């Protein structure tokens, strides 16, 4: 397979689609942002910082590259974090501390400064009309709040399915209390015991005559995403679309390094500029 040229996509290809109903995004830039909230949410940590520009421009499914401000060079690079929520001039992110970079960010205190590059990436396409089935796994639930809010604003009917390993992760379901979500845990400690992929087939039923097919939006660990992609491609309902947000290692977040690629049908694609949201059927699973 040949390398796919790294070109900005032509107009009208879904990027602009996603913009409908929101003002056009300003260009991404590096912002020096003050942390105004830092609190634990079970196993995760919710950090909010002031950034009017990103708050005005960001769309559901976009992400930011975040690092501590200052001259220390370890951790060296920013870490990609999905945009969890937006206030008038605030951005919230939800962090699972899994290593050095995320651990450091999760330790941010009120008053600390973060260097934030964003908004970045192509978010979810909100164009379609069918029932939205939103599936989140673990820390992958984070960007789904902004998505659920946007879909709700558009009056889309929604099913929200959130899956976690355990009780301390499932605490983050509390962040979705504005929406009517179902919670699954692998250990059965909260909600139903099981994986999020279990209720999924039941959500993908043929729509009433003349209505559009359901549409799946998913974010979570790789195995979850591939299960979701498989289930929706095999559900037998014509017209079901599945958008997945993938997580890969990133260095630049702006298409410069070619480090974040994932395998797609036509070759590698960059998760940072061509994603992180992809149509499941574009990708090789």
């Amino acid at each position, binding site marked *: *397979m*040949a*390398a796919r*040229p*790294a*070109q*900005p996509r032509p107009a009208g290809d879904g990027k602009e689609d996603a913009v409908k109903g929101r003002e056009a995004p300003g*260009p*991404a*830039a*590096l912002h020096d942002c003050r942390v105004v909230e830092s609190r634990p949410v079970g196993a995760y940590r919710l950090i909010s910082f002031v950034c009017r520009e990103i708050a005005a421009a960001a769309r559901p499914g976009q992400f930011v590259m975040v*690092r501590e401000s200052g*001259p220390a*060079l*370890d*951790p*060296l*690079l*920013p870490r990609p974090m999905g945009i969890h929520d937006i206030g008038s001039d605030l951005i919230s992110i939800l962090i699972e501390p899994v*290593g*050095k*970079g995320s651990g450091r960010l999760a330790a941010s205190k009120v008053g600390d400064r973060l*260097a934030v*590059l964003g908004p*970045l990436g192509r978010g979810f396409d909100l164009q379609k009309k069918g029932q939205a089935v939103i599936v989140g796994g673990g820390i992958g639930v984070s960007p789904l709040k902004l998505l659920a809010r946007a879909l709700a604003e558009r009056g889309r009917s929604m099913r929200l399915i959130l899956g976690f390993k355990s009780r301390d992760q499932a605490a983050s379901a509390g962040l979705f209390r504005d929406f009517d979500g179902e919670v699954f845990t692998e250990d059965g400690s909260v909600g139903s015991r099981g994986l999020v992929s279990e209720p999924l087939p039941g959500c993908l039923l043929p729509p009433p005559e003349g209505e559009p097919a359901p549409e799946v939006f998913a974010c979570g660990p790789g195995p979850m995403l591939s299960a979701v992609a498989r289930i929706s491609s095999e559900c037998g309902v014509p017209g079901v679309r599945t958008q997945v947000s993938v997580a*890969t*290692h*990133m*260095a*630049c*977040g*702006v*298409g*410069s*390094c*070619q*480090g*974040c*690629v*994932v*395998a797609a049908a036509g*070759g*590698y694609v960059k998760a940072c*500029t061509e994603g992180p949201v992809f149509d499941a059927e574009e990708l090789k699973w």
Partner: protein
Amino acid sequence: MAGMDLTTRLGAIELRHPIMNASGTFDVLEADAVLQPDLLAGFPFSAYVPKTVTLKPREGNVPPRLYETAAGLLNSIGLANKGIEAFMEEDLPRLAALKAPLIVSVAGERTADYGVCAGMLADRSEVAAVELNVSCPNVELDGRALGCDPDRTRRATEEARQATSKFLIVKLTPNVTDIVALARAAVDGGADCVSAINTVHGMALDPWTLRPVLGHGSGGLSGPAIKPVALRAVYLVSRGLDVPVIGMGGVTTAQDVLEFMAAGATAVAMGTASFRDPLLAGRLVGGLETLMKERGISSAAGLTGRSHG
């Protein structure tokens, strides 16, 4: 700043300040879309080096391709690129809009490729200079880089030299016993300039599975971690040779630029630091001026090689 002269020269190419980008770390065509619609015009670097291109398109290595280490970054992109033909057709015309000289980086899987690529670029007016990336896995050498061998390096440079009269830069790999010998081989082969350093060989294991974390197995280390290695290379090469040196490896602050120049660089390239801040270069220029002023140095030319004493 009044009385400050930041201009520097690579042969006949005049740079308005010494800070350029390192190949493979800044994609101006992408950035133009993502960051600033006017980036091609208000470009922060004094020269632009696109990602290395090869004769044939390369899809690059299997991901993961990145892993952060202490103050460093390991990458194994594998020279993913669309091939020189597509580059010349699609990218070169757009890059002509850049307000900075263009230095095209080429690599070959075979020694002869260097001549072919240099020849293809020879009469393109958009191209100010050609940089030979000799760290590419070489099929004639079982995948080792020809840049580790002085003889091969000289021959690859000769091929390119015969094919073009453009300013010719050879980019040195630090993964050798004697980098000055390699630099000398490049100059013997006809190079007008050397750049140093490319990434340092390194490896990381997945903390959990304990298997190599990069899809390709090992990779190249860049960033502040390698700055001392790079600074020494620039120092030794610039003392040992009469051609200008483009210094790079971990440049992150204006102070770093100052030090690479003092070590002997005529211009300095920034790579990994662009991933911390894609528009950093612009700000470093002002910082560099301030640092020079504080030290009573009024020109880039007066700064170059200042450590040699």
